[in-house]
């Protein structure tokens, strides 16, 4: 179980919303999401915690770029091995025939040779799902196999 950070949220009427985060190391950061889309990053003064010692205004593009840099990479791409294995993430759409059915029913492994090694949900990730695992709309399947195999699974899940 990895430690989770809990930012607190404060409404700033007429300006936007402020989020505060105190790190493990005791540093206090504020992020203000302005209603006009700008962001303000504030670093609190260790001597007077009520006050921001430094603040950085960011426009929308800068904020997005910074967020991208700060986001830990979800899944490291596999290096291409000699047997040309690739990994891809395939969404289960509402139109998929397997939405609401189990992993076993797809027979993906025997049909395509590629494996569904994990399922990502908005709430959590399920590594190595068992054959009785039931898919839901919105799931992201992590598939490993050859290029052909992975493409075949993609067709299968999409209902092609």
């Amino acid at each position: 179980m990895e430690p989770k950070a809990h930012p607190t949220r404060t409404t700033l009427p007429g300006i936007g919303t402020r989020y505060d985060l105190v790190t493990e190391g005791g540093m206090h950061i504020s992020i203000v999401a302005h209603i006009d889309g700008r962001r303000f990053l504030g670093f609190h003064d260790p001597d007077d915690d009520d006050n921001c010692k430094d603040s950085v205004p960011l426009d929308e593009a800068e904020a997005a770029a910074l967020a991208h840099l700060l986001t830990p990479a979800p899944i490291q791409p596999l290096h291409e091995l000699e047997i040309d294995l690739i990994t891809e993430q395939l969404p289960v759409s509402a139109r998929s025939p397997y939405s609401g059915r189990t992993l076993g029913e797809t027979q993906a492994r025997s049909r395509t040779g590629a494996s569904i090694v994990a399922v990502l949900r908005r709430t959590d990730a399920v590594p190595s799902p068992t054959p009785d695992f039931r898919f839901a709309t919105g799931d992201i399947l992590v598939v490993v196999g050859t290029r052909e195999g992975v493409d075949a699974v993609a067709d299968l899940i999409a209902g092609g």
Partner: protein
Amino acid sequence: MHDLTALLIELGALLLALGILGRIANRLGFSPIPLYLLAGLAFGHGGLLPLGASEAFVATGAEIGVILLLLLLGLEYTASDLVGTLKTQYVAGIVDFVLNALPGAAVALLLGWGPVAAVALGGVTWISSSGVIAKVLGDLGRLGNRETPVILGILVLEDLAMAVYLPILTALLAGVGLAGGSLTLLISLGTVSIVLFLALRYGRVISRAVSSDNPEMLLLVVLGLTLLVAGIAQQLQVSAAVGAFLVGIALSGEVAKGARNLLSPLRDLFAAVFFVFFGLSTNPADIPPVLGIALLLALVTTATKIATGRFAAKRAGIRPAGRWRTGGTLVARGEFSIVIAGLAVGVEPRLGPLATAYVLILVILGPIAARYTEPLATRLTTYATRLRTTPTTSEVAPSTVGTSDVASSDVAAAEAANSEATT
């Protein structure tokens, strides 16, 4: 067609001058409002360049400016913001009203201007400028500070109180007696409550009805609706500005965002025209006689605003340094003091010049107070603590040293203002 030519030339010259003044204000890093007022004084009766042909147009533009100012203010807030703040901070709001409206009302009564002018001048000294203060908070990098929600809460309460105060003032100016004034109070309280209730319950429905993907349609619909409601509100003896404010509150979400982006430039244009018009209708020769009173009133209400801020921040559990920052930030007065004075000019001719001088002082002093009140107060309090041989408490008694601190920080701020003006 000769009139039209003169109108175009005058209006063009006026707007161009305002644009140049606005750039100068931006370069110097303060609000353009005082420069617009000064421009109005320069152009007006008894000024350097009296305007003739465009006066009627400017007068109409000024009315639209007030309506747009309040519409955009309403768009900034959601109904839940208002109701939530009202629940948590109403005590601070009451203290704010008592401490800051009373000095203005008392001065009007002492000058023998009568009760209606007292109500108006009380409003002028009561309402801080949300526009100036929001900008100052961003410029000083204090949006993340713990005291910022307290500051914004006071501004929200003042703006909400305007929705009740303006109709009463309008009614009093129209010459209704105490009974009529009470009736207006009940009607406006009822109207505000109903609109807040509708906006909370059906805000999404209202916004969807107004919503449009086409910016042009959205602009026309929102502007048309606002002017219509403002006109009807005026007809019902509730002020037009309040009608516009309530329209702004009723719109929320994407519509509010779109309308804000579309209407901000219009607001800037017509609000500038409004400040000029206010300056136009003030004779510069009337200002020197009231300058002393304006200065005294500015100093007193700076002190009372700082006290208000300290009280509100203390209630919110903020440490002494943050309390000083809260007080100093709230000092700035601006657009709404002028809006109120503009309504009440008819009742007392000296009210306009006094309000002009008062706002000129505080719109410049406000950002300075926001910046320097806390460092100065902190330095003085630590110095005072060190002077005492028996360090019993670190908290200075606000009744004695606190007030002298405020006074000296005012003087310092005023000196800073002077030195800044000369350089």
